[in-house]
């Protein structure tokens, strides 16, 4: 567990003191805007999820994995992000299936081109 240590020679003390009504209003305004920004980013993510779910399974999992990687850097609570976690599991399950399929295609192409040469 990462313990939060105080920097050397600095003591972590809070003495907020009395706030003016203007200070309180400023804090509330900041919180309101922050909530709005978070809700917007959440709804954008939900739209993306819907779009991703409409794709064929292989493409969806590929996209999901890319998104998962980008989310990992943004989201502090990633383990609780159900969709991302599910996507990861789906991706991991599909990966071994996808790999032979690609090599099969390549070998088919090789066979075709070698037949054509002959």
């Amino acid at each position: 567990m990462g313990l939060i240590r105080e920097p050397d020679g600095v003591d972590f003390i809070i003495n907020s003191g009395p706030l003016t009504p203007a200070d309180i209003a400023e804090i509330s305004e900041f919180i309101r805007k922050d909530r709005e920004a978070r809700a917007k980013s959440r709804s954008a993510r939900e739209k993306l999820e819907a779009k991703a779910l409409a794709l064929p399974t292989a493409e969806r999992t590929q996209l999901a994995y890319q998104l998962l990687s980008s989310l990992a850097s943004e989201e502090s609570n990633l383990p609780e992000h159900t969709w991302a976690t599910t996507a990861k599991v789906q991706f991991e399950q599909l990966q071994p299936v996808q790999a032979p399929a690609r090599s099969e295609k390549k070998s088919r192409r090789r066979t075709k081109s070698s037949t054509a040469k002959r």
Partner: protein
Amino acid sequence: MLEVVIDKLTKSIEEVATGRSFDTNIARVTAADIRRLSAGWNFDWKQERSEREVYRLIAPAVGPTIQGLISLERRDDHVFVNLLESHPHNVGRKKKYAGVPGNLMAFAAKISQDAGFGGYVAFVAKTALVAHYESTLGASRVGRSTKMIINGAAATKLIQQYFGGQHGIDS
């Protein structure tokens, strides 16, 4: 009704000399707790207790000594930290235990989350500590002031870091 909140934190303070970690718990401070505070505390915690919610942090394995105190106010949309102080032996270059303030701030975030404020916590920082709070607590500065906010995402991270999903509220 007397409300006693006890929250168990796991391995959340560290003995600086040995690097050993100790479990801690946080509970609402009582009048008896205030009476047995040693000399050297900066703030008038007796007065603070009469005006706001005050909580104390102890590490049971090392004894009943209060390692830190925090006072909170529940506002309309957030929890406001009015005072936070570590035991005098946890202050300065030769501090005995590190990590007390981080614990207490994580607790404030949890109170905010439990109260339905989405984890939002506000406080006023010393200018010299603004950057430290930004990097360690994930707090954001309100404009160019020293007023700081821990938002929902930062609060979730703090709670997971310190509470690890293990906590209980007794009443």
